[in-house]
């Protein structure tokens, strides 16, 4: 009977028995259900179609960001006087022109570049500083943790958007200033999340077990703690990316963002007289909306997919 079962499953049960000649326990098979021969496969939650649509949109954005200079687009700052201001959709200007005769499509693509670069670099600052400090803080504990947590909560208590507006008005809003300021304001958010996740992981028995095998603190932190913190960190980072892009849009709408093309600038410019130019607002607005929803959805799916707690047998 058992051999039939084994044969039905490709004979792995026999190898199982062959391997049990060790420490004198013939009843080992009771340890595993006899009908389950080899290791079961992990079934992680599926990503789903919508996830891949979102990834597709983000891929298009990434492509535009990287190759904006190589695409057959008009110069986003070039005034095409022949077309006239607020020109409608034409063969030459697929999305029309804005109020100073610039090509909307070109500005949309170059705007994607601005938004993504600010988003990515700002997030990198937040993740690098906030993530590292959060992990160290939760792992070292003690006074270091208390002092750092206190200063981070002070940072969180700051009304961030008002502070950002004040700083940028005073300091001037170049691309690097915006990246730095927005990045630094995400540090406490990421710090808090990573610290909590690290605290939850660092008290687990497998961390004690890793130490009991002689691993150094550095090794425990990066080899054992970090992989357990990473899924939530990555997911939250993607949300943060969306958040920074949205805030950049808001800053641009207030006239505090970069001087070049950005989605926020475009919405702001067209918003001066919505009645005439509603179609032109829709371009950057839809692009912004799709980007944010894609980032949020992708972040959530990645978290669920890689969360060890969500793995089903």
């Amino acid at each position, binding site marked *: 009977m058992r051999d039939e079962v084994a044969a039905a499953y490709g004979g*792995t049960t026999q*190898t*199982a*028995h062959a*391997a*049990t000649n*060790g*420490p*004198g*326990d013939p*009843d*080992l*098979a*009771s*340890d*595993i259900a006899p009908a389950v*021969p*080899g*290791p*079961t496969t*992990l079934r992680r939650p599926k990503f789903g179609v919508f996830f891949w649509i979102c990834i597709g949109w983000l891929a298009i954005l990434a492509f535009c960001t990287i190759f904006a200079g190589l695409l057959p687009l008009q110069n986003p700052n070039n005034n095409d006087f022949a077309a006239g201001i607020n020109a409608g959709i034409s063969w030459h200007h697929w999305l029309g022109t804005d109020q100073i005769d610039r090509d909307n499509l070109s500005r949309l693509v170059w705007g994607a570049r601005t938004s993504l670069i600010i988003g990515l670099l700002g997030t990198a600052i937040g993740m690098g500083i906030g993530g590292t400090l959060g992990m160290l803080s939760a792992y070292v*504990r*003690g006074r270091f943790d208390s002092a750092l947590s206190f200063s981070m909560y002070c940072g969180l208590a700051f009304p961030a958007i008002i502070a950002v507006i004040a700083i940028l008005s005073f300091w001037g809003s170049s691309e690097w200033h915006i990246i730095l300021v927005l990045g630094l304001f995400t540090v406490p958010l990421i710090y808090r999340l990573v610290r909590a996740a690290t605290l939850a992981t660092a008290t*687990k*028995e*497998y961390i*004690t*077990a*890793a*130490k*009991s*095998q*002689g*691993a*150094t603190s550095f*090794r425990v932190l990066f*080899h*054992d703690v970090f*992989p*357990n913190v990473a899924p939530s960190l990555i997911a939250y980072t993607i949300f943060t990316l969306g958040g920074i892009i949205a805030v950049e849009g808001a800053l641009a709408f207030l006239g505090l963002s970069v001087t070049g093309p950005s989605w926020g600038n475009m919405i702001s410019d067209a918003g001066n007289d919505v009645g005439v130019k509603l179609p032109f607002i829709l371009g950057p607005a839809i692009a912004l909306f799709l980007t944010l929803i894609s980032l949020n959805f992708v972040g959530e799916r990645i978290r669920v997919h890689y969360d*060890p707690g969500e*793995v089903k*047998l």
Partner: protein
Amino acid sequence: MTNGAPAPPSDVTPSSEHAPVDAPPPESRLLLEVTNLRTVFSTPRGPLCAVDGVSLTLNQGETLGVVGESGSGKTVLSRSIMGLLPGSNTFLEGSVRFDGQELVGADESTLRSIWGPRIAMVFQDPMTSLNPVHKIGRQIAETLRLHLKLSKKVANQSAVTLLTQVGIPSPALRAKSYPVQLSGGMRQRVMIAIALACGPELLLADEPTTGLDVTIQAQILDLLAELQRMRRMAMIFVTHDLGIVATRTDRILVMYAGKVVETAPTAKLFANVRMPYTEALLHSTPRLSDPSHTRLQAIEGRPPDLVHPPTGCAFSPRCPYAADRCREESPPLVADPGEPDHFYACWYPRGVSKVQLPQKEPSVV
């Protein structure tokens, strides 16, 4: 052995050139000597003495069972011996000499070089003591690569060999599994494989079978005994179950409220229980010889609050034989007059003292 025969094989010769002439034979080499170990946690309520002046010795290849109920300090004792306790609010006093080397107060890197290749630990809950994000083969191989500096390939092969040794079927396939894909018994086997990876001389098994069901328990215990015999490894077996240690240990140490209350070679302990607490533990264990539906005799009350321990004998509030002296003076650990290797901390030890209370008849439900 006849006179003039060639030198007997390995069991006498090896260490003779290093060891002094009158050194004990290698079978009984002293491996671990714990003297007056105290572990104090500073808590918001005040200092908590979880291990209070424990002394013990362990020879190579020997097994010591540490028994006590929850909160008696047995887990803290095993972690204190290893030095594996959170640093900031823990204070360790006394001495732990492992193979002549002092571990209390040793610096981190010394301890780390000992943890793994010389002392290893099997943890209580196999469900939480494996890292969920790494494949088990890798978890075993990492230890090997860290301490024995094996190449990745050799370490992976050794990991599979170890999985075979601990009785995991199709080990090469299993090495590629994540912990979540294994049952509790399997995970505990993996934990044992990780602990044994670097061939430790001392294994601390902290309730290694508590999280497992009874049939798997027996398998894991047999496995540990077998591997211990093969590797001539010393083992400290921490458990609350006297039944488990009864047949598998050379010596038993009974702990209560952080103190050793009775210790003796296993057979002698079971033959002549002296300390009422040990007796109470024995009575609270079900026996096959009892008629069915026999009520177990639970030990009344709860373990004492270690921040404010009772004066006198810590067990006196729960002891059916406690007299005034028990509540006033703490009994020292003394040798039994009849058996010099049997120690107990009791003013009125069972079988010796005159104070006798009628033994409760087991009530049948």
